[in-house]
């Protein structure tokens, strides 16, 4: 054990990794508090996996420093390896072996005696609902089962820090929810989780703090609330009865709210992104706008107030949308 005790599970400063001409990771600073789920959000090729690999001692950084529980990932790699576990983008288990064999193999490598390794493998398979598939080769597992055996392998010895690199990529929604449940159970026991994802709702669901990463750089960092607030208080969506009065309504919104108004493809619909400069909540601003519209005699058929989604956050930060296609809508609040 090192003398240095730290409340941070991960601390990096100016972390750099280059592959030829490409700076895959270009000066990443992270501070991950212990005992939380920390989300690293970014599109494909943003440098998420490379960052995780450096933190898990699989890649040597070309610049900067990284400490895991106070241990340098290069100089004290062995110390770090003793405390972390990694579940990679692709199943990090041996596909030729059965579920049981995989877990017993890793149990033995972690220092368990044969009997203890077998027992723990059996209990893990049971907890993960894989008892029936225990004697089958992993190559015959479904995508959801692979993820489970993979995570089971990662928590054979309860790690202090668990890296989950895009744990739900390619999973159907049900399996995805099950993986989320597992992550919550793991964190509830005190393990720190570093989760990389390109799914905005995944970070939203699991992480307490999020770093948004693009082209190898952290472009924003904070709690979910802070990130959302950084792009404004929310968005108000309106449907008018009379499409002819839309330009007028847009003008009123612009004037009364100092908001960015967007005309939707639907001729009666428009939306306004609310600012947070005034300090008023989104609801206060929205009711003021509705009152203005009512005074002018514009009839509003339908109205909803949306929290800013991480999607909007991403768009605002990077200037380009994520390639994510199936993200969920903002949480809608019926008026």
């Amino acid at each position, binding site marked *: 054990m090192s003398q240095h005790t730290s409340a941070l599970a991960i601390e990096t400063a100016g972390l750099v990794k280059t592959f030829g001409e490409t700076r895959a990771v270009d000066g990443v600073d992270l501070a991950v508090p212990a005992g939380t789920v920390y989300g690293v959000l970014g599109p494909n090729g943003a440098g998420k996996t490379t960052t995780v690999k450096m933190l898990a*001692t699989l890649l040597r950084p070309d610049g900067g420093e990284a400490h895991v529980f106070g241990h340098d990932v290069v100089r004290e790699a062995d110390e770090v390896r003793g405390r972390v576990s990694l579940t990679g983008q692709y199943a990090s288990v041996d596909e030729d072996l059965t579920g049981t064999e995989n877990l017993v193999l890793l149990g033995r490598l972690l220092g368990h005696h044969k009997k203890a390794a077998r027992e723990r493998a059996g209990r893990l398979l049971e907890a993960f609902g894989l008892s029936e598939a225990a004697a089958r*080769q992993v190559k015959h597992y479904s995508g959801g089962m692979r993820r489970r055996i993979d995570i089971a392998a990662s928590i054979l010895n309860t790690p202090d820090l668990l890296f989950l690199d895009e744990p739900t990529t390619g999973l159907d929604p049900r399996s995805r929810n099950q993986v989320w449940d597992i992550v919550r159970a793991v964190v509830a026991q005190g393990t720190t989780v570093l989760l990389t994802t390109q799914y905005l709702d995944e970070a939203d669901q699991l992480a307490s703090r999020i770093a948004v990463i693009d082209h190898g750089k952290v472009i924003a960092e904070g709690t979910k609330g802070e990130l959302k607030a950084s792009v404004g208080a929310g968005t108000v969506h309106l449907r008018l009865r009379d499409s002819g009065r839309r330009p007028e309504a847009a003008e009123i919104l612009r004037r009364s709210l100092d908001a960015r108004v967007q005309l939707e493809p639907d001729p009666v619909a428009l939306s306004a992104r609310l600012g947070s400069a005034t300090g008023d909540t989104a609801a206060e601003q929205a009711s003021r706008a509705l009152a203005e519209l009512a005074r002018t005699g514009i009839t509003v058929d339908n109205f909803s107030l949306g929290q800013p989604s991480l999607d909007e956050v991403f768009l605002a930060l990077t200037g380009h949308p994520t390639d994510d296609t199936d993200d969920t809508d903002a949480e809608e609040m019926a008026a």
Partner: protein
Amino acid sequence: MSTVTQPHDRAAKDLAPVSAESLAALLVTGERPPRPSALSASLTFGWRAILKIKHVPEQLFDVTAFPIMMVLMYTYLFGGALAGSPKEYIQFLLPGILVMSVVMITMYTGVSVNTDIEKGVFDRFRSLPIWRPSTMVGYLLGDALRYTIASVVMLTVGVILGYRPDGGVGGVLAGIALLVVFSFAFSWIWTMFGLLLRTEKSVMGVSMMVIFPLTFLSNVFVDPRTMPGWLQAFVNNSPITHLSSAVRELMAGDWPADEIAWSLGWAGLFVAVFGPVTMRLYNRK
């Protein structure tokens, strides 16, 4: 080709739910045992290699069918011409062809390292707090088993064809032991190439370039005294010549101390040179 995610509808439906309580209990009780020793970790990886043989027994083809073919082919091809009859030739040939075949089989190590290293499981192995070379040593321990199988198969065929080792069981076992030890050491060349080269095909190509001249330019088939001087100089100093002389004489009941020393010396050199290079590549991969 194995697909990464292949949704099995049936399997997904049958999948039992995750039990959060038993999971929580497991995480809490998780005690952390002391790290395994270098030997224990290596043996565990050796066990993995044996499990793979168990699940994919076809991979024993190269240590069964191939050696049988080698013995039959060379005994009957050269026997009459070189020694008067296949039966007489096999007394000379068998230990040599045994060495040649097993040394040839070692090159599959490179191919399996090359295909295996790309898989996600290697990331896990490399992030474990264990003695770093144990992954590679485990491979080679599994391969040592394959070499032993090949040796036993070839000796059986040889005995059927009329080979009678004067050294008896003891001499034969000593010969096999020396051969397996040498092959284990020699294989570090292949682990290096397996990590160094990008594709399976290039590993295969380079392996052939090394292995054919090295095994044929030796005293496996004929006495080097009939060769031109420059070739004798190479052949007489080749590790394969030393090894096959040692194995031949051990199986004939002699104790060729010099040749054994040369073979073990070469073996040590291979490990000393290619072991560290392999580990360097492995750590940098």
